[in-house]
């Protein structure tokens, strides 16, 4: 009883236990679910969500939200094939350029929120709409195929049988956990999220941290965009759309307060895995796409209720 109680006070662990339970039950009842290849595939899908949600976790911890994540993923996925210079055999220059652009977009989001005092929800939504329009103008409606070797390596390589995307996710996870728990800036994000006024009067610079945070979110969304592109081999308008809501859902499923000030990326990781697992299970059920969406939405809502996330304050 006591163990159960303490479990409910530790959302990241609770989400992890939930994932383990779902995997165990599904593995025993559904043929093929528990196969190594299938589980590996789930993790590979979760890696994209997890990386996109890395920036989202940081932003939400500080009490903001980034609605441009999906658009930034699309921008990078379409830009990399277009801007990778032909003289670069590694493809790293194109990747670096695309990541710089993604970070720059995030920086603009931060500048709007910090200096123009536009609420982040409006600023990032406007940015997303702007980018989508720009992409239609620049890339037209057609898909672009990627030939950048670095991107293809990231999307397709399996050193020692482990997909490179999962390895990238591990690196991102380590970095984000270090930022939140081992660096001063992480403690400042949390303080700003819980009480911006008290944090400001304690000498925490709101503008500076907002800029850093949204730039980081742009960077991680760009990284997710490159991974998606490598896995798909093609970039097209709308490729990033599914990752906006899933990035937010993964954060909240992981027990991070949507109001800011409380939570950790350690919850977002199992949150992302839980999301792709749920999607996979729904796909198994033979239903029309409409019903799948309805089931997905209902499931997310009930998962949130089960874990009683938003603790009464």
């Amino acid at each position, binding site marked *: 009883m006591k163990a159960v109680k303490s479990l409910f006070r530790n959302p990241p662990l609770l989400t992890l236990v939930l994932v383990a339970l779902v995997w165990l039950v599904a593995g025993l009842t559904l043929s093929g679910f528990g196969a190594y290849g299938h589980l590996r595939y789930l993790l590979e899908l979760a890696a994209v969500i997890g990386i996109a949600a890395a920036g989202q976790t940081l932003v939400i911890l500080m009490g903001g939200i980034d609605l441009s994540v999906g658009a930034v993923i699309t921008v990078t996925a379409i830009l990399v094939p277009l801007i990778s210079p032909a003289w670069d055999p590694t493809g790293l220059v194109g990747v670096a350029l695309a990541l710089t652009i993604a970070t720059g977009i995030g920086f603009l989001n931060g500048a709007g929120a910090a200096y123009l005092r536009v609420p982040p929800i409006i600023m990032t939504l406007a940015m997303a709409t702007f980018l989508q329009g720009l992409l239609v103008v620049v890339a037209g409606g057609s898909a672009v195929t990627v030939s950048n070797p670095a991107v293809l390596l990231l999307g397709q390589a399996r050193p020692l049988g482990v997909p490179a995307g999962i390895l990238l996710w591990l690196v991102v996870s380590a970095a984000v956990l270090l930022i939140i728990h081992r660096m*001063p800036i992480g*403690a400042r994000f949390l*303080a700003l999220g*819980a*009480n911006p006024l*008290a*944090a400001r009067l304690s*000498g925490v*610079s709101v503008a500076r941290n907002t800029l850093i945070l949204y730039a980081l979110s742009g960077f991680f969304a760009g990284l997710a965009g490159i991974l998606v592109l490598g896995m798909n081999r093609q970039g097209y308008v709308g490729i990033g759309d599914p990752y906006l809501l899933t990035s937010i859902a993964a954060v909240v499923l992981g027990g991070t307060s949507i109001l800011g000030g409380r939570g950790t990326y350690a919850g977002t990781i199992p949150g992302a895995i839980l999301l792709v697992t749920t999607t996979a299970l729904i796909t198994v059920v033979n239903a029309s796409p409409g019903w799948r969406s309805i089931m997905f939405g209902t499931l997310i809502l009930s998962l949130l209720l089960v874990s009683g996330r938003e603790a009464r304050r």
Partner: protein
Amino acid sequence: MTDKKPLLEARQVFKGFFGNPVLKGVDIALHPGRVHALLGENGAGKSTLINLLSGALQPDSGAIAVDGRPVGRFSPATARAAGIAVVQQELSLTADLSIAENIGLGAFPRRFGLIDYAALHRGVREVCAMVGLTEPLDMPVADLALGRRQMVEIAKALFRKPRVLILDEPTSSLSAHEAGILAGVIEMLRDRGTALLYISHRLNEVQALCAHVTVLKDGGVTADQSLSGIDGEGLVRLMVGRETGDLFPPRPACTPGAPRVDVTGFSAGLVRDIAFSARAGEIVGIGGLVGQGQEDLLLGLYGAIPAKASSAEVSGKSGLPADVGAANAAGLVYVPADRKHEGLVLPHSIASNLILPSLGRLARNGFRDRPAETGLIADLARRLTIKGDVARPVQALSGGNQQKVALAKWLPLDPSVLLLNDPTRGVDIETKREIYLMLRAFAAEGRLIILASSDTPELVHLCDRVVVLREGHVAATLVGDAISEEAIVGAAMGVDRKGAAA
């Protein structure tokens, strides 16, 4: 006078939270026509007792009796129906609604199912006149200063024509003038036969207004007696349970050092074109009625609100700090009056709050140095006698201990100028004494302390110099023996007095 039946009683009430007993068998009886004082240090159980008496909480055992009859399930609705009203310490007003709507909220006169604004305004005008609220009734409460909001809160309680009125630290944000009006209202209600319960940390008010006292200590009643013949010393003895020395530390002869703050033509917020200077080793008090620019003076010097000055030298640097970071770097720190909203990150641990301003200084190669942080936190907790586990959320602490955290977090920066905004508001007497001693020690170490306060005795007995603000201007600067309650109040209200040499 008290031979009548009590209107409201608690009989042997017990109440605990999460297994911690807060009230252990408390009796209290409120009689009509009597002002009853409830005293006790923070954490003694006063708030819990008030919540039981107003139906906000149910006792674990024991009973609440109205008109001598125990009430089974005493809910806020039953309490309202029985004519019990509470003026809460934490303001419970809705900022966007008007004064009239706030006062009438929950008891709107209706006509055809709609709010009858004409009737509402008639009733509201009457109670506003009683408490001296002259602002237009349709003004949003958000536009009022804190002290005026408190008067609205009191008017709201009066609007319900209560038979029992509970006032929880009603004067903590009031100016001396407003407190005087409130005292008049209390005396009038008493003469009309209302039973009043008065909670305050200001003993002179208790002595002036109250006839009977109940003292709580650690959840038990340590005194329940008439106040006649008990002086201030006696009250403190009742509360603390032992002899206390003077509340204020002795004031040594002031030998100010180098100028630390020197501004002329300074404007920030409500403050208009003032000259202000202060030297190392001084405790300078900022007094005045509530909302005359005291807070803006501190915030302006701290770089937290836009400010300008024709000439400024702050902590050895010319010019005002551009932002809070620059002020901190120059050795200025600020402790806000509203510690819950401005001073502390309430849901976070005591440790994270203590370490917040020092995060950058302690970091090595961009990473936090955990052992160094833990050492510093333990040291701060020990120096300020903050007891218990520092991993607890800071909101679990009593008001006094929260204030200690809000102050302690700045010590590692070795500040040369401390800007304090009402640091003892809602703080119990023992902690007050600790804070006063600490401030004296800081001054002796050559730090400058600028202290805005709504507690006049604090200004009189603690400060070496008092600057009284009125409508954003300096109304008087009082030094040494010229500092007295009369001189401060007189200057604050714009009355010319002897000794108030500007």
